[in-house]
């Protein structure tokens, strides 16, 4: 098997100076942030306006006693219980185009981790239109269960797409931990590929 030529210490060293923006701290954002913290990313910028609810616990990286807490505060706490080396900057707000450009300005990569399709469109159009050289990693399509082979990765210029690009959430097609975690970790893996190049 071919190796990629970096030890874990060298990977941590490279990642320690990097900064990743996470737009949304739900199923995609919380799991992606945890994965990046575990491998030694230096700086995370996490934005969300929501609070943890019981219904989130089927896929999001929160705990029962955190129900009712602001997601950004709860996620920062969970990340810091895993890693002391990551600096976590949090913003408790609902992102609009101006905030995206301001808050993620100094990031090396942005992770699109919203649940609503209109919010996904808003951030992708803002980043692709206003800062076309910024890599953005989107999660598109992960509701339901099974159907492993439909989850894929593709690159479209600076837009990196992870997901099945077909399964929308619905009452009878809910987002669940396994597939949401697959796509969230695929996004984290894509971030590593971009940052370790």
């Amino acid at each position, binding site marked *: 098997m071919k190796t990629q030529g970096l030890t874990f210490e060298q990977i941590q060293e490279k990642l320690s100076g990097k900064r990743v923006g996470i737009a*949304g701290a*739900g*199923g*995609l*954002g919380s799991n992606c942030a945890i994965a990046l913290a575990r491998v030694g990313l230096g700086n995370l910028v996490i934005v969300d306006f929501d609070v943890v609810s019981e219904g989130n616990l089927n896929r999001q990286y929160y705990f029962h006693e955190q129900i009712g807490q602001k997601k950004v505060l709860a996620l920062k706490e969970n990340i810091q219980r895993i890693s002391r080396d990551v600096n976590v900057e949090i913003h408790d707000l609902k992102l609009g185009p101006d905030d995206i450009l301001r808050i993620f300005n100094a990031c090396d990569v942005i992770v699109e*981790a*919203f*649940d*609503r*399709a*209109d919010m*996904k*469109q808003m951030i*992708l*159009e803002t980043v*692709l*239109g206003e800062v*076309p050289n910024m890599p953005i990693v989107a*999660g*598109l*399509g*992960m*509701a339901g269960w099974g159907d492993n082979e439909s989850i894929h990765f*593709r690159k*479209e*210029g600076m*837009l990196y*797409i992870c*997901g*099945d*690009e*077909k*399964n*929308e*959430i619905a009452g009878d097609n809910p*987002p669940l931990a396994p597939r*949401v975690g697959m796509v969230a970790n695929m996004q984290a893996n894509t971030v590593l590929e971009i940052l370790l190049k």
Partner: protein
Amino acid sequence: MKITLNNREEIFDADELTINDLLKIKNYTFHLMITKVNGKLFRKEERDKAKIHDGDNVAVIHMISGG
């Protein structure tokens, strides 16, 4: 004309199409999409004017909810 649509070659019986023409032909009716021609973003309101020609690289990305 021959174009690349979402990384696949496709042939259309026209010398020029707008993005909206292409969406109609392909029956892409999803209401939330990102459209790019040769790497440049065209928003919904620009799709009637944005022209596609032979050899162009077109991306149509559907915004699928969930996260």
